[in-house]
């Protein structure tokens, strides 16, 4: 087939900004995954399911309020909290007995959780497609450099830095963050100085899952909410965490940037083969830096 794509400067800038808003979601989800992986050493395959759960909860809460703007804000807030509560229950009920097991066991355990969440979502919400309308102020688009840019994506763009700064504050400036970082390096030592490691782990797990739920809730108005949305995100999130460095939150940011931007730039430059770009980027990074770009926490 004959075709010629014209790439303009404005178009590139536009594509870059769109890529950034995509990165936001990827970062929020994969930073949660990275946190859990780094501190608790659980490769949480069910992380994607929690993301899906966040989206479904967001839908249900917003519908409960009759799709009013207030309902939307409540939904964005309540959905991740709901996910956090569920994750707290799983952590206290199940995971906390398994911390000394091999990674492989933990991986398979979270896989089992993923299967259960999947069936549970099917049982509760059925199989219909669902779609959520963002509040009126986020509908439509604003012109940026002569191109329409969806307002909701601008909102997403502003959330990204807030989450990043919040995470930085949490891990660097609070007591729990410091303990968690120490526990990631040497958990026996932390336990030896008389700190209740178990509860530190629980809170880290809950925070990580909260982020998955937040990602799901934020993404809900931009796509259809279905079973199966967990599958795509979990693979991407894992790849991001690996190229960033296991357990490193900043690595997750870097990985999400690489993944999101190669994706959106690939769409602009070689749209026919865009699907290959992010994967190729991952493989290139791993060939040169097999342990990820930034130092892993362990």
């Amino acid at each position: 087939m004959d075709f010629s794509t014209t790439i303009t400067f404005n178009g590139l800038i536009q594509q870059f900004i769109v890529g950034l808003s995509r990165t936001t979601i990827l970062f929020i989800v994969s930073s949660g995954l990275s946190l859990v992986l780094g501190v608790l050493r659980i490769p949480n395959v069910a992380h994607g399911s929690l993301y899906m759960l966040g989206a479904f909860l967001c839908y249900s809460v917003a519908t409960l309020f009759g799709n009013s703007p207030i309902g939307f804000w409540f939904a964005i807030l309540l959905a991740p909290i709901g996910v956090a509560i569920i994750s707290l229950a799983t952590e206290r009920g199940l995971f906390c007995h398994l911390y000394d097991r091999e990674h492989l066991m933990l991986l398979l355990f979270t896989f089992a959780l993923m299967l259960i969440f999947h069936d549970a979502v099917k049982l509760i919400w059925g199989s219909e497609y669902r779609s959520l309308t963002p509040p009126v102020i986020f509908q439509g688009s604003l012109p940026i450099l002569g191109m329409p840019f969806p307002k909701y994506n601008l909102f997403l763009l502003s959330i990204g830095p807030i989450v990043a700064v919040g995470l930085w504050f949490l891990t660097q400036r609070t007591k729990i963050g410091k303990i968690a970082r120490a526990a990631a390096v040497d958990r026996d030592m932390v336990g030896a100085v008389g700190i209740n490691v178990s509860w530190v782990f629980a809170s880290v797990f809950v925070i990580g899952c909260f982020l998955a739920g937040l990602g799901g809730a934020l993404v809900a108005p931009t796509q259809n909410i279905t079973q199966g949305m967990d599958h795509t995100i979990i693979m991407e999130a894992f790849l991001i965490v690996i190229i960033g460095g296991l357990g490193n939150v900043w690595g997750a940011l870097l990985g999400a940037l690489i993944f999101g931007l190669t994706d959106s730039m690939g769409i602009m430059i070689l749209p026919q083969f865009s699907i290959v770009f992010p994967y190729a980027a991952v493989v290139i990074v791993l060939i040169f830096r097999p342990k990820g770009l930034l130092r892993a926490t362990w």
Partner: protein
Amino acid sequence: MRRIVSYMMFVCLLASMIGSSTLTFAASDIKVGIIDTYSGPPSSYGLDVLDGFKLALNKINANGGVLGKKITFVTRDDKFKVDLGLTEAKELIMRENVNLLLGTINSAVSLAVSDLAKKEKIPFIVTYGKSSNITGSKGHKFVFSMNENTEMIGKAAAIGLAKRPFVKYWIAGDDYEYGHAIADAVWNHLKKIKPDVKLVGQSWWKVGEPDFTPYITSILSAKPDAVIVATGGAGCIPFLKAAKNTGFNRKVAIYMHTATELSTLRPLGLDAPQGVIGTANYYFYYPETPENKVFVEEFKKAYSRYPSFGSLIGWYTANFIAKAYEKAGKVDPEKFADALSGMTIDSPIGKLTVRQFDNQLMLPMFMGVTKKVPGYDFLIATDIVTIPAEEIMPSIEDIKKARSQD
């Protein structure tokens, strides 16, 4: 504790093996085995088909069944996986002893089961798989398609689009077989009807792509007249949503197969963009025939929702099955296949015929444009143009050529 658990597991396994092998069904029934996707995103289509099928079946059985026998059915969930679908098909044929197979939305499963049906000489009726290979290059005596296929979609779209003034096109779609097959079919036929059309570019996204904004912005910067969007099922909804949020539909004309279908527009509510051109095989509000009104009423009464195209497929498939067994005179796979091939029945969208040559159902196509209409809490299609089945059926010569190459 450990001991108990392991014993429990063995007992469960044993019980399930024994329990399942002692199950027997009344031999006098005609048994239909349905394999379809009942979990994951595509399941809403499968459930629509099943509901339509049940609706027609209940009526047939209430009127005494066929050949003095009732038609019963069993379902299996293939979870959109080929290996699972294949095992289930074998289980249905060899253990449940079904008389015919029905299914599935996944073209890969359809093709795999079709191959099995050919070997086992069991009729297999494809309900929602849209690959043109099913009745085309891979067609055989025992496989039937009750749905439109990618070739038909392409021809219909080309006929409809050629009447519109667009010259510069962009093609975008789901990066899998179905997306590419539709795009190729539309483009090849369009080029034939209207040789001056130009392809400005293409974009392909992965199936299940969550966010279409980057694709839309990159398409907009190339300024085409119209975009042919080739997404299947799950992709339509987020694409239309992103189209509305970016104002895409107001800048460029969009054509998308199934864009006007109820299964796509209903979940979007009033959030769908207006003015999108779409093709579909059925609307519950069109054609406005008495038969259609009766069907819609009955379906609404039974399931308290409007019927989609899937529901109609289920409905006429059941009627085709009943009539074919009646014509065959006995429950025999060869006789059934011979009877169904070339058969015509009445339906809410007029007379429908299974083409004798390739066992492909001849379906008309309706091209319409999405619009907000008072009285509905979702958008519906307006300015509907009917493209008759005869004009869009794949050419027999092409199929012959494709089959001889294999």
